[in-house]
């Protein structure tokens, strides 16, 4: 049951230049994507830097205006600020930011940070509010004495957990997690990922999990979208993507994962070289002359890939997979 649907979303940023900052051209940050989100599921969004992942996330929570396309929440458009307000949309969709540190107001204490959404939507007394904040801290495994500390007194992982506590304060249905762990060390990353999973189970949350680390995405997500140049190049379940990647870009991504397997070092090296070659050889099947990604074609119940046509698909299946 999708409660959130995104239809043909496009976000184009003007490139301004010159003295007057007039619009010279557009960055096609997001250029026509469809996405639907069910309750309690995690959706992965992977792609290279600058492919438009954050932009999608921001548009969903309402920080960016779509250039065209629709965002439907329970069937109703929430493109405008007013509509979002009316539907209580902002309560339901929250975000965890890529740059943890900058997403916490350095001048506010933890209690004020976590209580901010509560103050906006719920009329709690000071006492109730503090209790609630403590509960939230508890959920993300932070000690109670964090309450009156400032963000800079915490480690990266702890900060990220504060961000999570804030995001879940209003019991949202969806959290857009924009690279929540890519700035963190391994051990801390594990911590945060564990909490995200735990909370999901408890609150039946959905995540839109943005990352470029395929290992992490694999660990977290049920359904994965691969993004390139503002469009989806492949979408499917975890198994679809990892076991049967079709699109050359996906394949390249997977090949680039540094595996912890010292003995087969050479083998991986060869694979990378091979995929690289493939990428160069077959790109015309996956990108048109302008380098634009083709539309998605369904190849199984859950698996979609952006390819020129069915014929090309066969060609690819025979030659590569």
């Amino acid at each position, binding site marked *: 049951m999708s409660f959130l649907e995104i239809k043909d979303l496009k976000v184009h940023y003007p490139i301004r*230049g010159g003295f007057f900052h007039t619009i010279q051209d557009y960055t096609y940050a997001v250029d026509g994507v469809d996405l639907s989100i069910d309750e309690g599921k995690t959706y992965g969004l992977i792609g290279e830097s600058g492919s438009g992942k954050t932009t999608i996330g921001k548009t969903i929570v309402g920080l960016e205006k779509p250039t065209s396309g629709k965002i439907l929440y329970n069937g109703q458009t929430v493109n405008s600020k007013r509509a979002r307000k009316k539907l209580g949309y902002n309560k339901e969709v929250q975000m965890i930011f890529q740059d943890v540190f900058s997403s916490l107001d350095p001048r506010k204490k933890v209690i004020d940070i976590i209580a901010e959404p509560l103050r906006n939507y719920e009329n709690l007394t000071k006492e109730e509010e503090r209790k609630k904040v403590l509960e939230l801290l508890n959920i993300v495994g932070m000690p109670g004495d964090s309450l009156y500390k400032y963000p800079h007194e915490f480690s990266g992982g702890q900060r990220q957990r504060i961000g999570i506590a804030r995001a879940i304060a209003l019991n949202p249905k969806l959290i857009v997690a924009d690279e929540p762990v890519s700035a963190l060390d391994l051990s801390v990353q594990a911590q945060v990922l564990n909490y995200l999973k735990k909370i999901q189970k408890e609150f039946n949350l959905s995540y839109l999990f943005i990352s470029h680390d395929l290992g992490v995405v694999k660990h977290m997500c049920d359904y994965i979208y691969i993004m390139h140049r503002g469009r989806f190049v492949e979408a499917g379940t975890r198994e679809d993507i990892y076991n049967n990647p079709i699109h050359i870009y996906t394949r390249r991504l997977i090949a680039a994962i540094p595996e912890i397997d010292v003995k087969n070092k050479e083998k991986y090296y060869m694979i990378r070289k091979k995929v690289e070659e493939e990428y160069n050889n077959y790109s015309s099947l996956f990108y048109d002359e302008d380098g634009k990604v083709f539309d998605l074609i369904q190849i199984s119940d859950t698996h979609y890939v952006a390819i020129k046509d069915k014929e090309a698909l066969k060609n690819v299946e025979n030659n590569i997979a």
Partner: protein
Amino acid sequence: MWKTILRRVLLMIPQLFILSIIVFALGKAMPGDPFTGLITPDMDPAVIERLREEAGLNDPIPVQYKNWIVRILRDGDFGRSYTYKMPVTKLIGKRAANTLWLSLLTVILTYLIAIPLGIYAGRYNGSKFDKAVMVYNFISYAIPRFILGLLLLLFFGYRLKWVPTTGSVDLGLEPGTLDYFLSRLHHMILPAITSAILGTIGIVQYLRNEIIDAKTQDYVKTARSKGVPTNKVYTHHIFRNSLLPIAAFFGFTITGLLGGSVFIETIFTYPGMGELFVSAISSRDYSVINSLVLLFGFLTLLGSLLSDIIMTIVDPRIRIE
């Protein structure tokens, strides 16, 4: 780039236009008129009345404004100075040349003083030299311009007789000859030094901070890691980057000097624009006031344009297309 410069220049027109209205209205709001100063017992009041009539001062103010602006636009005629009995353009032209020369020399001296001071203070920050520079900075900040000017004039002009005490050039020299040029320089040097000493304050401070800042930049580390000799690291990597904001302020520095010229010119009896401005105000020499204000406004606009252009030239990150 030329196109944008042209556009910027065009944008000046409405700004100057509004400025012209404001300054005209203000001029008229000042009590008295250019002929108030003629009042003596010998003077026939009818003559003053006649002069007022001839000058159009008895017309309604909007009509006066219209006449003035039309004459400027149609004939390029900025009117005549009542006091100096000559076309304003000619009068201001001479004075402006004086002020601009003085400003130019001041700028050169300012940079000659400020840059080494700022650089050494920044490079060896915390050293005795740095502290001395800071003290110098404060003292020159607190000393009003005219006190410094008078002190220098009394000492170098009258006591030591190293420099002339009045005027801009010696008598009987042909413009264009070397002697003429040297004489001008001789007359300008003390006022320019005075101005420069005061002008260095901001620059020294700024440069020092910039250099301290630049020292910790990653690219400086890169340069060091390349084995670039320390002095070269400073000259090639730190200075240039630190000078950037100062270069950007160059345009403003010039206009700032024009604005501050009145004190220096008054003390050194140096006939320039600033001094002309103040005396024009006290004699209500409208056409001079108006034209000077427009000129100042224009130069300020030009200064900021110049700053922008310099900025784009020295900083490749900013592009004008």
